[in-house]
């Protein structure tokens, strides 16, 4: 137990742990102090100064986010001095900010706008600085748009990129009035180490960093009578979409979402879960094959550990940062891209459609998926496999634009084919989920028995620690996989690229002997993706994760290899995992990229 500190906030006594900040102590008293640069996930910056408070005995007003409490402290959060200062600060930020709110993508979702409204900043009292600035707009990336004229220099993005992702594609450059958030040499985001993960977008309080949206393109496809528009939805979308549509975090909205998509006019509403299951088949067999080559054939060219390849942010990170390990990545495309490749081949054939008329849309919790869909490798159907990627947030916008009262929508089922899911596919959305799904299948392939965990729940791989190591002992193998008898499969799971770096450094330095690595670029996995509803914090991510596992428990089929549509596609089209067609459509390669 840490020491308790007694203080008074607005005259109300409170006792809090030593080291608590005034901001957090006030929260315990349900006193809300406005903030901008503060974010639960990030270290304290104390630079916006919106959260200043009066402290007895102090000449200055300290920033409550950065000031630790001390014994006998008396804090006032709502004095004339505080209000005047706060208004000044908001007003100053507005003077530097391109406040064309009505045409801003973040209109109605902007923390600065909210603060200005709350404080009734009616007429800007200071001189508009925007005409004096040479603000730049970077709209070259397929994933993220950076508009400096909206930036309030809170540095949340910089801290996100550094602390959570260890990428630092964004930094602070210059000083004084010229200070700005900048990439290396002010190059476009598209040309630097940015992984497109969108975690900065999740934390930007204004419209300075937003996803590139494809709303109009998608509406145009829907309205085009010549086009057959298929949409796939990623596992993590169904546990977060509700947050942007007036529901609490953690509410599962799968059925309502499917109804909404049908009402929006998509011709076929399908599930990325189907290709998540397919990924498990391909990736599971790829792992077993690599193990066989390494252990039985003693093939020196085989690369172990094998790493998952579902997270396009992680792929771009490794391409920039550890290119010498590209051979360790599974060659499997992500479920989104497997789906795209099949939509314009298998699906089009089965539904007797001209693939050139099929428009393939995906709804993703992710901004990096937009970049992934644009990669030149992702055209194995002969067309662009996935035409447009929308984030969870964009889908919510479409639902609102269409006038749908989401909460009251009835539930409905995905269409067929490629609409069937299993619990294993659903958990792809949470950190550890791909590992758990892979183990449910691989263990059974090798031993003929289910994984020895109660109710198929491989709890050791779950959780929120950044890096989790789990060893699974393989016993009672079937003859074909006899060479694995008694082997200990060493796995590791990491989420957030800072943790990915830890794992990769330990691999590079020979400090580990993993066989299989699962890495998700975003904190918490896809449920914490850069395309998910804003805000995000540990609490919200926990609720989404719980919802994911609840969805899994409620599914009739919980193992990828039992997905009837997966069984069918191998029978009718792909023949077998890692077969010729699989290689053509479901696997890919990677490329080394510069480190800046």
């Amino acid at each position, binding site marked *: 137990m840490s020491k308790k500190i007694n203080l008074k906030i607005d005259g109300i006594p409170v006792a809090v742990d030593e080291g608590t900040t005034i901001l957090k102590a006030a929260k315990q008293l349900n006193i809300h102090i406005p903030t901008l640069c503060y974010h639960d996930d990030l270290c304290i910056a104390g630079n916006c100064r919106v959260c200043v408070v009066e402290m007895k005995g102090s000449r200055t007003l300290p920033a409550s986010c950065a000031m630790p409490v001390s014994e006998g402290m008396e804090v006032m959060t709502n004095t004339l001095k505080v209000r005047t200062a706060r208004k000044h600060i908001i007003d100053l930020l507005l003077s530097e900010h391109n406040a064309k709110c009505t045409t801003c993508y973040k209109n109605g979702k902007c923390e600065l706008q909210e603060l200005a409204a709350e404080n009734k900043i009616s007429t800007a009292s200071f001189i508009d600085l925007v005409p004096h600035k040479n603000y730049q707009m970077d709209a070259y990336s397929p994933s993220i748009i950076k508009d400096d004229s909206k930036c309030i220099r809170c540095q949340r993005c910089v801290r996100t990129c550094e602390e959570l992702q260890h990428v630092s594609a964004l930094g602070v450059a210059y000083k004084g009035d010229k200070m700005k958030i900048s990439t290396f040499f002010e190059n476009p985001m598209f040309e630097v*180490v940015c992984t497109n993960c969108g975690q900065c977008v999740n934390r930007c309080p204004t419209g300075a960093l937003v996803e590139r949206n494809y709303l109009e393109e998608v509406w145009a496809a829907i309205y085009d009578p010549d086009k057959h528009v298929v949409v796939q939805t990623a596992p993590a979308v169904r546990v977060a979409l509700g947050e942007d549509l007036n529901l609490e975090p953690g509410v599962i909205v799968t059925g309502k979402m499917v109804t909404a998509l049908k009402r929006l006019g998509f011709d076929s509403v399908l599930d990325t879960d189907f290709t998540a299951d397919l990924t498990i088949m391909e990736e599971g067999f790829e792992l077993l094959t690599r193990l066989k080559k390494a252990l039985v054939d003693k093939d020196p060219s085989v690369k172990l550990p094998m790493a998952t390849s579902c997270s396009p942010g992680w792929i771009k990170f490794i391409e920039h940062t550890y290119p010498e390990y590209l051979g360790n990545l599974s060659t499997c495309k992500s479920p989104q891209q497997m789906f795209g490749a099949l939509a314009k081949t298998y699906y089009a054939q089965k539904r007797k459609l001209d693939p050139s008329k099929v428009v393939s849309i995906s709804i993703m919790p992710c901004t990096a998926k937009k970049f992934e869909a644009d990669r030149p490798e992702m055209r194995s159907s002969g067309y662009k496999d996935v035409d447009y990627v929308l984030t969870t947030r964009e889908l919510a916008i479409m639902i609102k634009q269409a006038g749908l009262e989401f909460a009251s929508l009835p539930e409905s089922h995905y269409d067929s084919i490629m609409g069937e899911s299993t619990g294993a596919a659903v958990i792809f959305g949470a950190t550890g989920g791909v590992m758990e799904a892979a183990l449910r299948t691989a263990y059974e392939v090798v031993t003929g028995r289910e994984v020895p965990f109660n109710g198929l729940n491989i709890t050791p791989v779950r959780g929120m620690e950044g890096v989790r190591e789990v060893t699974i002992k393989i016993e009672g193998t079937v003859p074909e996989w006899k060479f694995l008898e008694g082997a200990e499969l060493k796995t590791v799971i990491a989420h957030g690229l800072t943790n990915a770096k830890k794992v990769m450094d330990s691999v590079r330095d020979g400090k580990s002997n993993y066989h299989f690595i699962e890495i998700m670029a975003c904190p918490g996995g896809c449920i914490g993706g850069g395309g998910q509803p804003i805000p995000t914090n540990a609490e919200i991510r926990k609720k989404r994760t719980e919802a994911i596992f609840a969805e899994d428990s409620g599914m009739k089929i919980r193992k990828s290899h039992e997905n009837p549509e997966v069984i069918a596609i191998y029978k009718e089209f792909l023949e077998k995992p890692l077969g010729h067609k699989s290689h053509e459509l479901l696997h890919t390669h990677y490329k080394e990229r510069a480190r800046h």
Partner: protein
Amino acid sequence: MPEIKELVKNLASKHGKTRESLIPILQGVIHEERYISDEAMTEIARELDISAAQVYGTATFYSFLDTQPRGKYVIRVCRTISCAMKGKNLITHEIEDMLKIKVGETTQNKKFSLLETNCLGWCHKGPAMLINDDAFTDLTAEKVREIINQYIKK
């Protein structure tokens, strides 16, 4: 740019490869090259295992760590109050006139760059200027002409 690579490597082995070495390395590049090119910055980022944006962000914070190409001799005329009161503008104009460049520019032959800077710490002997590391004080139009001429001959 193999020379830049070599230079950065040498500086990194002299100053070390921790973050604390960053500014000494940047200063070393300035000493040799008068500015820090994007190639130099990516090399430094590689050597120190930090992001190039961090190198850029740190360099652009400091007035003396130029990221734009500069001439062999960088002239920095003090523009702060005491020097301004003592006729800094006359000095700047004199140099502009001699070198046919404006403040912020570099001569065609890449020999001189003319910049203005904040207080140089010679307020009692203004106007003052630096040419690279050397300070010149109590400047007059004649004096500055003489100094620049000497550098032209160098």
